């Protein structure tokens, strides 16, 4: 996991710290605070957990314990290309788990995590509403139905190639202009 915050995130964290003042120092405020932090930073970095624990004067471990219990909190920044693998009933039956495993293996991360370059993150979701296409994976905003393990590499490759093409176009533009 990449622990470094980006400059924007550091800004957001400062913003968070200033907003904490409006929350009373009560244990009951922990979840609302965590929700506020996640809204600002889109995830809960270790630095933010520390800030929250200092504000509420409870141990970091306790904040972490509460945060890990709830599905809505994430501990890794969302990747540039979020991958959502459906594990709803239909996709599960049609081997969604195998698709998830393939993405995990190809990218070397587990679900809920983000690649160190923050390009990809994997999540599992429960039903995206197109069970006829099971198993389904969503990359960026595009739905890929009838997924197969053999398709995983191709999809990732395509994103890489698109990225390279953009890069090349940009360099070309720069050199022309």
């Amino acid at each position, binding site marked *: 996991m990449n622990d470094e915050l980006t400059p924007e995130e550091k800004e957001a964290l400062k913003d968070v710290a200033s907003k904490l003042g409006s929350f009373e120092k009560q244990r009951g405020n922990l979840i609302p605070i965590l929700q506020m932090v996640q809204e600002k930073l889109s995830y809960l970095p270790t630095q933010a957990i520390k800030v929250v624990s200092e504000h509420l004067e409870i*141990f970091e*471990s*306790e904040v*972490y314990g509460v945060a890990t*219990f709830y599905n809505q909190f994430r501990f890794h920044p969302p990747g540039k290309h979020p991958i959502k693998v459906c594990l709803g009933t239909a996709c599960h039956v049609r081997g969604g788990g195998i698709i998830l495993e393939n993405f995990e293996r190809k990218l070397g991360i587990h679900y809920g995590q983000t690649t160190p370059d923050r390009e990809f993150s994997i999540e599992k979701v429960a039903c995206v509403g197109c069970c006829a296409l099971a198993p389904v994976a969503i990359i960026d905003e595009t739905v890929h139905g009838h997924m197969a393990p053999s398709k995983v590499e191709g999809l990732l490759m395509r994103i890489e190639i698109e990225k390279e093409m953009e890069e090349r176009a940009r360099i070309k533009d720069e050199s022309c202009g």
Partner: protein
Amino acid sequence: MPKFLVDNKEIEAKQGTTLLKACLDNEIYIPNLCYLEGIDPPSVSCRMCFVEIEGERQPVTSCSVLVKDDMVVKTDTPAVRQLQRTGLRLLLSVHHVDCKNCQANKKCELQRMAKFLKVGLKPKGLERHLREIEIDRSHPFLDYYPNRCVLCGKCVHVCREKNGQSALTFSKRGFDTVISFYGVRDLSTLECENCSACIDICPVGALALKVTGAEDPTTA
């Protein structure tokens, strides 16, 4: 002081005592993992200390019942034993049974219960669900073995008792639940080095002092 019958033996205990404690004090063993005097209300999470009480429709957990006059309690009925055996088998199905290499060998609560309830340490018919991480070494002085842990929560409690706040906590959920030491990098406020409360209270040896010096052979 309430007087009552447990397995046809008359017992007396102070008002406000839990049935489990009264039995244990009178040398009537009831399997239990999560009960600890002082955890109030009791966590009632291990689901092992079942007994039958006359007048109750089904077995009840003795750690959550206070003693009453003229109670008639049975600790050894088929229904109780079945619940306990199933509970233990489920616990063992998520337990890395490797007693020879475990520090708790011979003083392990699971071993004791298995012997008492006549359950094999490797029960058949249940799938094994072990966690991927064998040892959590994130604490500077302690090692945590998630596959030994029964999640009784006693360590969390004693740490809180001793230090005001607990450096240990439950994290995650369901099968993934573990004890974690998240954020204990700075131990200036804690005396983990000289305190082994959590290690001493652990019924199964899931917490241990870090092996210093020679490389631990169990490291993968």
